[in-house]
């Protein structure tokens, strides 16, 4: 069996076109390459891929993290649990142990350290994963519960889906911190989508530094490219960063996206550029 290839589509700045590019690559894989592809939406705070791929959801299950439960009968109020916890999620005050589940990272330290064996763990739901099919492609996304701070465990769970398919396309949340790292860590290749604006290029630089720090192979896709705005191209040239595609700025793409349609099927010429991008990125990722 051939190894499954995971391509992460990330950006630094939000709204540069990650979802448009990643959903298009899934369409290209299904249409052109005949690949059995899986789309994984790791933007669990604001997942959008389903609005375009319109999957049939066939399975839905909760994802949680382990949090402590204190047995008051057994607790000797020694305070060791509070000393171990780095997140102030468990504290011992006036001979009573209080837990703050939302602060808990689920490390298990308190339960391990408790000398009285008074702490067990229970799962606390932080979000759900929904999976199904969009055409011939498999689909999974995570939805973080509103008001929940801890997204990485849900993201890691989304990333573990679709291991059996030949190609996995990971739609990554914006930024460069823990949710992004959790999304791209297991990827074979990263595509950084940028736009030729000062914000786009500045945040691209942050993203380039991040993927270099992680030691992942990557290339850039310049979205909404315009002949009179060369700043993204100049940046890549200066930093020795490979550009795999330039997608021309086209109001038709923005309009198609605004309606929840896939520019891949909707905008003339777009499909060809995405088919080409898929071929180049697969070639790169296999190296």
């Amino acid at each position, binding site marked *: 069996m051939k190894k499954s290839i995971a391509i992460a589509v990330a950006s630094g700045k939000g709204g540069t076109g990650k979802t448009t590019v990643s959903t298009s690559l899934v369409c290209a894989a299904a249409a052109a390459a005949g690949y059995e592809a899986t789309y994984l939406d790791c933007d669990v705070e604001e997942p*959008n891929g389903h609005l375009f791929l319109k999957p049939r959801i066939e399975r839905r299950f909760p994802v949680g993290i382990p949090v402590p439960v204190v047995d008051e009968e057994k607790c000797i109020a020694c305070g060791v649990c509070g000393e171990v916890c780095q997140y102030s999620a468990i504290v011992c005050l006036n001979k009573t142990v209080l837990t703050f589940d939302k602060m808990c990272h689920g*490390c*298990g330290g308190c339960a391990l*350290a408790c000398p009285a064996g008074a702490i067990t763990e229970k799962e606390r739901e932080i979000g759900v994963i929904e999976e199904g099919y969009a055409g011939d492609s498999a689909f999974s996304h995570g939805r973080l519960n509103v008001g929940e701070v801890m997204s990485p465990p849900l993201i890691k769970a989304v990333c573990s889906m679709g291991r059996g398919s030949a190609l996995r396309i990971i739609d990554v949340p914006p930024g460069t*911190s823990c949710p*992004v790292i959790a999304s791209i*860590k297991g990827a074979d290749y990263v595509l950084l989508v940028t736009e030729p604006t000062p914000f786009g290029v500045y*945040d691209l630089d942050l993203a380039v530094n991040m993927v270099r720090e992680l030691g992942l192979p990557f290339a850039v896709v310049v979205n909404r490219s315009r002949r009179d705005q060369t700043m993204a191209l100049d940046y890549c040239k200066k930093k020795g960063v490979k550009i795999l595609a330039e997608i021309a700025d086209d109001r038709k793409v923005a309009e198609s996206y605004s309606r929840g349609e896939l520019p891949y099927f909707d905008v003339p010429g777009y499909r060809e550029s995405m088919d080409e991008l898929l071929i180049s990125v697969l070639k790169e990722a296999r190296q």
Partner: protein
Amino acid sequence: MKEIVVISGKGGTGKTSLVASLAALAQRPVLADCDVDAADLHLVLEPLVREENDFSGGKMARIIADKCSSCGKCFELCRFGAVVKNENQTPGFSIDQVACEGCGVCSYFCPEGAIEFKTAINGQWFISDTRYGPMVHARLGIAEENSGKLVALVRSQAKMIAERENLSCIVVDGPPGIGCPVIASITGADAVLIVTEPTVSGEHDLERVVELARHFDIPAYLCINKFDINPAMTGKIERKAAAEGVKVVGRIRYDRSVTEAQIKKIPVVLLAGAPPAEDIRDVWSNFANEINLQKK
């Protein structure tokens, strides 16, 4: 004093461009860039840094090679996959700093006391002056954690400046999403101004961000950026927002002058002849009225 936070749910809807304009429209505001892992506001406001400080949000584990007996206890206990096995090497294990969650379990339970657990520097934060008012901003280190703590720090510094200088308004540039840094940006604020765009994604993400504001009991207002990309969707979103009790304070048209202003490093409202400038002035005027803010 009022603290207002500009958020969006979806990324790239124009938060920072709007905040840069609000900086120019508000009466000497304190500015706070809370999008600490992709901070852009300084690119337009060109702050003159007065004070630079290290930020330390948590601790990091490190294995001390000559004390380690390679027993593997740390590997067994770490739930974050941050202890890496090094086959045929001494010591047999090391810590992946990127994966390390800073929980300290490995260090606490190491039978040899071979894992040090020390405060780490996760970024920097700055107090600066801009043409429009003082600004607090930050830079989270590459692949770092604890963005929520850094956001809380930026906000508390902005508040201290506002109190010290008796300034009436703090304008916060928030991060995208609804998770940890967003929650840290909005809890306890006086109002959130949500910027969205007339797309199915904007609509979907707005629902979740409105729910978040309600969850923390913060009054939410809405403006729609690039409204003319899809006027029908703009109307739909506005009706939906109204039904949710979110007041609509304006529409901003799509125009390339927004990028031009970014390139020239000036707020759009100060760019001569920029069509969205008028729209943004209306947004600010309506919003300031709604929250009873004194105007310039």
